[in-house]
């Protein structure tokens, strides 16, 4: 018997207006794991995450989440089951305030008291957001928007958090801060699937990794093994 996976993806294919961006991806994430999905620009990482979160319908293949078939289920359904995506480019609502963005994260919940506590948790995690809670999200810096996007996803109390390029376009110090937070979230027991172009940072954070190339998974191994692999070092670590 294999370990019970939280998320299982079999033969996933996704087409974008005629282009087959993902051409048969198999991957699995067990409860409590931190898994990295790395690869070059255009390898199909973002498209894979969009399909996993229900933003894009798969052309073929199957998605299983918590043992149930969720292939083709829309995003608003999956987030209710505890599967949440922090999209590429952050996707904050620019003309909602920071607090309103966070409230949108808790849209699926009714437990007012607990929601208030989660607001405090997010503000404790990101003091910058607490200072700016009444400010429009569009006026925040890139790093602050990334904090907001992650904090907003946490407001839904996800079991599985998909993170798409959290370090993109951020200054090195901010990248460090974001990755510290990612590790803190994982330490709370949230399962993570992390897409990154910064392969070194991703593999140092995660326990396992998948490498994508031209829409396919070409390597799957423990993070340590991937970091040591000559193929990965040459292609993604610039050696």
């Amino acid at each position, binding site marked *: 018997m294999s370990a019970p996976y939280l998320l299982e993806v079999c033969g996933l294919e996704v087409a974008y207006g005629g282009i087959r961006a993902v051409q048969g991806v198999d991957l699995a994430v067990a409860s409590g794991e931190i898994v990295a999905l790395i690869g070059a620009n255009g390898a199909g990482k973002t498209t894979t995450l969009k399909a996993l979160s229900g933003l894009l319908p798969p052309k073929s293949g199957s998605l299983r989440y918590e043992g149930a078939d969720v292939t083709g289920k829309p995003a*608003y359904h999956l987030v209710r089951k505890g599967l*949440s995506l922090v999209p590429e480019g952050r996707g904050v*609502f*620019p003309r*909602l305030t920071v607090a309103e963005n966070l409230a949108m994260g808790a849209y*699926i919940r009714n437990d007012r008291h607990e929601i208030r506590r989660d607001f405090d948790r997010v503000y404790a995690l990101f003091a910058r957001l607490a200072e700016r809670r009444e400010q429009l999200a569009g006026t925040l810096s890139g790093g602050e928007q990334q904090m907001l996007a992650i904090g907003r996803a946490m407001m839904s109390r996800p079991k599985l958090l998909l993170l798409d390029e959290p370090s993109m376009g951020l200054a090195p110090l901010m990248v460090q801060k974001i990755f510290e937070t990612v590790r803190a979230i994982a330490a709370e027991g949230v399962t993570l699937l992390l897409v990154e172009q910064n392969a070194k940072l991703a593999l140092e954070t995660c326990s396992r990794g998948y490498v994508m190339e031209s829409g396919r998974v070409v390597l799957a191994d423990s993070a340590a093994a991937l970091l040591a692999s000559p193929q990965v070092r040459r292609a993604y670590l610039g050696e």
Partner: protein
Amino acid sequence: MEIFTQQLINGLVLGSIYALVALGYTMVYGILGLINFAHGDITMVGALVALTVVQALAAAGVPAPLVLVLAGGCAILVCSLLGLSIERVAYRPLRRAPRLAPLITAIGISILLQYTAALIWGKQYIALPKLLEPAAIDIAGAQLTTLQLAIFVLACGIMALLLWFIKASRMGRAMRATEQNPDVAGLMGVNVDTVIAFTFVVGSAIGAVAGLMVVLYYGIGHYFMGFMLGLKAFTAAVLGGIGNVGGAVLGGLLLGVIESMASGYIGDLTGGVLGSNYRDIFAFLVLVLVLVVKPSGLLGQSGGDRA
């Protein structure tokens, strides 16, 4: 001075009706980027349904306040269902189509509604039976009728309620989020289809109330009445900044006042060449001026920072 005060009163009352209709245009535009040209005709359907109910009940001797409530209720019900069906049947299948497709569809729906109404109610003007005896209140030499006052107060009440709802309620927040990024709203658990359908229902229901107000104010209804009313309300929405709810309110009131002032003074200004029946010129002059000088409208964001 009496002319000024009188036209200000008339303008605010008319403008509050324009504003109600403009809200329907601006809410749908905000969320779908679609100019729903059928909205004026939904208002027309509301007006004619209300007229029919008033005719039937007034003849049966039902007291006037009850007649009004029932007429408004029926109009709201019919228009809400109409808005819901139009969105479901005509616009939703075109959600990912090029922008011109739903626009042309909207014009088609507008024509369909007009001629369906002509089949049901005929092409003649329909008169409102005598129902109310509005008293007049004297304000600095000008007259404000109790009907005008009631229309203005109700319109402002509806607008305040809607603005509060969009600002403070969970559904209102979901509407704003969907408007700004429908995909991410979906990631938050918002069913975008439900939010869009809800927007159509609210816009149509408010349009129905506006239709009833027009019928009470002018005392007549007609299958083509939604055309001009719709164009004026659309102008009001553009003037305020289309997509902006507060802008629709401001644009509607302003347009009403501009139009009333113009019709009050146009005779003097042109030496009697043009009479007050030319007042429609001004609404469209405003539209052209706004589109040339500030296309984003008074309260609208300029195209660039709409993320």
